[in-house]
């Protein structure tokens, strides 16, 4: 480390960094944004390829032909569903048993912390039905799962029926090396979570469920099927899971390979791939697809029933059938063949999918961006925080460096006590804890005193605490009398910058999209904050507003733009969904924002009102 030990060179380097600090930061920020947007440009991406040998070199000839029978079964399932008013458990059990599966049921119940207004449920009680197809000649150590949700109304009848038809077809084949579990879950994600917890004997959330009586070994992969019409025009692949976790890219490659083979149109984020990457429309199309994936990954919820499997190290993806206005339609037999092919390839796996990437972004189904390409975009944003911190350190240390060899050392001019920095930190974190705990705990009290429903009470309490936090600096300044030295806010800024850098770094490692989106809004404002900055700018780039902007951008990207009031209602529902996801499935976005990002932002807010 000659560069850093030689005092002259070191002084020159630090001098350069402090003189050119602001230009370097601006260049880094712009470079980071341009790098990120450039990721969607096709020459900068790589074509997807199958990495797992066991899945690539085998030929599969699909022979599934009972598509019509599946459709008639769908009508029967629908009729029984209406009669039972929910999940027709006896009919399903009998249907699976007649197809030669070992059938088991699991009943579960869960009381949500507050009513879910999107799905209109509060006290959830349901039953999962699953049938195990035992591998005829293999030891029962590994399993695959195919699941279809039992949804109310007209949705997903064809999915369950296709599941049963596939089960009947699979039962007659002899080449299965893994057990196959056909799962029909009720109440979508809640049922899946209860089943997974019962299967793995874990207790992450407070479900009350019976333990599973039938097991099939360690699950290697899972596929979730959502099909609501007799014919479809395209199949959509959903990859984003809980906390932004993605399945192994090989699963997406497998799906794409089979769609090519069977001639089925496949989409991702609902968008079809385009070939004209060198035109502006082509590029914007790819960029929109990638941005949709980033936004979906950032919000940390599971966008399909598969998302909860990922946490147990089970590679899973959701396949959704879409019926839109195109000429070319695909029937149920082809979808059955596609699933048969995929499951047969997964059957050939010798070990879990691990060869391909776990961290990637998809501008289209045949192109991907790996972590090595997208992380530098985040790195450029994080380095701004470090440069600013270094700059502050040099400025703070300058008076001490002046008295380098004096026997009488020059006292640092009113060096700030630890208390001036510690107080804002402690108070900010206490506010964060309040933001995390109080909305759910105070909902009964809020409902008593105000004419709002429970959900609205929770969300409005959260917003109220968030806004109340903005008023804190005035009060803390009044408490600490005689503070507010020039050094004080610089030390606080240094601490807060390092804290934010570590926080964003850890977030980006686990969920890159969340880390990047937070970095894009937080880094410029925090790097340039001084007591003289306008408070409005700070508020407009706060985490809550970031969520609001993301809501509007998301609506624009899915081609369903909303007005301001609708956007606001969506924003409120996003907050309530976030809190519910955390309580029900253990999503980490809400605790991260409430307990770490918001206090960090509050520390910077304190700097604005220094003095």
């Amino acid at each position: 480390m000659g560069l850093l030990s030689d005092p002259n060179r070191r002084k020159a380097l630090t001098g350069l960094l402090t003189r050119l600090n602001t230009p370097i930061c601006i260049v880094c920020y712009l470079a980071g944004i341009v790098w990120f947007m450039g990721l969607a440009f096709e020459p900068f991406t790589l074509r997807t390829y199958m990495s797992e040998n066991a899945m690539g070199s085998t030929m599969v000839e699909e022979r599934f032909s009972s598509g019509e029978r599946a459709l008639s079964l769908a009508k029967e399932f629908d009729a029984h569903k209406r009669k039972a008013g929910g999940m027709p458990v006896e009919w399903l059990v009998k249907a699976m048993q007649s197809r030669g599966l070992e059938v088991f049921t699991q009943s579960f119940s869960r009381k949500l912390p507050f009513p879910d207004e999107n799905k209109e449920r509060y006290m959830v009680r349901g039953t999962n039905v699953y049938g195990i197809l035992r591998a005829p000649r293999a030891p029962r150590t590994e399993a695959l799962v195919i699941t279809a949700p039992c949804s109310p109304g007209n949705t997903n009848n064809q999915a369950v029926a296709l599941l049963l038809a596939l089960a009947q077809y699979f039962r007659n084949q002899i080449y299965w090396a893994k057990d196959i579990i056909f799962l029909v879950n009720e109440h979508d994600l809640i049922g899946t979570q209860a089943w997974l917890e019962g299967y793995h004997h874990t207790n992450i959330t407070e479900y009350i469920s019976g333990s599973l009586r039938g097991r099939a070994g360690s699950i290697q992969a899972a596929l979730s099927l959502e099909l609501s019409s007799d014919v479809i025009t395209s199949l959509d692949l959903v990859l984003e899971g809980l906390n932004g976790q993605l399945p192994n890219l090989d699963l997406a490659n497998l799906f794409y390979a089979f769609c090519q083979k069977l001639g089925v149109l496949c989409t991702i984020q609902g968008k079809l791939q385009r070939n004209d990457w060198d035109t502006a429309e082509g590029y914007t199309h790819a960029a929109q697809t990638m941005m949709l994936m980033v936004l979906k990954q950032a919000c940390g919820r599971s966008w399909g029933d598969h998302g909860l499997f990922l946490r147990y190290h089970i590679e899973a993806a959701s396949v959704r059938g879409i019926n839109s206005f195109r000429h070319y339609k695909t029937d149920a037999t082809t979808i059955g063949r596609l699933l048969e092919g995929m499951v047969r390839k997964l059957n050939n796996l010798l070990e879990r999918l691990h060869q391909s990437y776990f961290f990637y972004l998809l501008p289209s189904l045949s192109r991907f961006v790996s972590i090595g390409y997208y992380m530098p975009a985040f790195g450029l944003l994080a380095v701004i925080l470090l440069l600013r911190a270094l700059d502050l350190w040099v400025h703070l240390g300058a008076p001490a460096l002046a008295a380098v060899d004096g026997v009488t050392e020059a006292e640092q001019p009113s060096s700030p006590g630890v208390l001036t920095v510690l107080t804002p930190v402690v108070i900010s974190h206490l506010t964060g804890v309040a933001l995390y705990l109080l909305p759910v705990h105070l909902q009964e009290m809020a409902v008593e005193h105000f004419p709002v429903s429970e959900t609205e009470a929770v969300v409005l309490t959260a917003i109220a605490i968030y806004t109340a936090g903005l008023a804190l600096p005035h009060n803390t300044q009044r408490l600490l009398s005689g503070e507010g030295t020039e050094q004080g806010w610089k030390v606080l800024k240094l601490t807060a910058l390092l804290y934010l850098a570590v926080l964003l770094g850890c977030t980006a490692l686990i969920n890159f999209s969340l880390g990047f989106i937070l970095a894009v809004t937080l880094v410029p404002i925090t790097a340039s904050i001084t007591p003289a900055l306008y408070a409005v700018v700070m508020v407009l780039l706060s985490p809550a507003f970031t969520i609001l902007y993301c809501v509007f951008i998301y609506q624009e990207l899915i081609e369903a733009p909303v007005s301001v009031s609708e956007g606001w209602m969506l924003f409120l529902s996003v907050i309530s969904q976030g809190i519910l996801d955390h309580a029900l499935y253990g999503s980490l976005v809400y605790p991260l924002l409430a307990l770490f990002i918001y206090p960090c932002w509050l520390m910077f807010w304190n700097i604005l009102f220094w003095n």
Partner: protein
Amino acid sequence: MAAPLTLLLIVAVTIRAVLFRSSLAELISARVEVVSPLNAWKRVVEGLALLDLGVSPYSGDVFHETPLMIYLFHFTVDYAEIVFIVSAYFFRKQKYALESDRYSADCLELLRSPKEMFYIPLKVAMFYLLNPFTILSCVAKSTCGLNNAIIALFIFCTLKGSALLSGILLALATYQSIYPLTLFAPALLFFLQRLYIPVNLRRSSFWFFTLQYAFMYVGSLVVITGLSFFLLGSWDFIPSVYGFIFSVPDLTPNIGLFWYFFAEMFEHFRLFFSCVFQINVFFYTIPLSIKLKEHPVFLIFMQIAIISIFKSYPTVGDVALYMAFLPAWSHLYRFLRNIFLVSCVLLACSALFPVLWHLWIYAGSANSNFYYAITLLFNFGQVKVFTTTWLTNCEWKNRWRNKVSLFINLY
């Protein structure tokens, strides 16, 4: 001084008590960075259970604590939390006491104002008690806290000048984990300096005192080992404790350097590499003692740092031990180069340990290389702290010598 100290103590005890009662305690006591197979509370409980059943606690290769430790907990197992908080208190008390009269032998006060000197004990106590590493270690009920307390008591007795007590406590510390053996040299040098015996291999007074001190040390070690034998009735504990420390059979990932290496190598070379790694810990004693023979307290600090970086099963409690000493050398702060970068590296690594563990074990998206990379970076940061302090000390000594000679020449 008493008031801020009491306040500090109250705050530290409150934080520990709050964390003990919360649900985080179980989470923390399972973290590999905080507990190791040598000092995990879970294993102590296992050993106690085996003892109650009348079986040797060392059967089953789970328990690796010394017999005295198990008997200590046999009587205080219900009050385990209090024991740990009390040991933290003792540690603080020793630190405080030792700092207030440390410089009676050194004449280095001239370069610091008396006001600063006054606050050093408080800073040391703060650095230890409020260090997140120590709090985590205490909440996890890792016996590392007790080991730290014994080492602190040893340093205290050494500085107070009582050779017998110092020998006994050093023997106790060595008995717990072998590495404090290297602290024999700095303690000896301190006593020699204090009694004005020159370190000259030809003088009989030097040998006389060395033999005296060695006799006290070895004697207490023999007594303690014999006592353990009589307590448990067998020599089982020697292979289980000391054999375990030296041969490193358990390769659970931790913040040390051993696990990844030993997981990768062939059985054939295992003996060779364990010898090399273990020699690495003891090797630096002689050169450092020769170089730092006039500054035995700084030597103690250096030795503790080396032990906690290169020992076979380090935990964050060991790291906290030598970090707590840093304020004692606050006069070096001004000359510390790159301290900002190094502390950023250490901070980032401490935050990244649980993240990469989660990605490796739970999400399955990473593998052991990621975790070992952070381990390497963490140890690199520690080594940087160590070398920076060492170099700064040398530079400061040179400046001081120049100043003094200048001073003397003027008059």
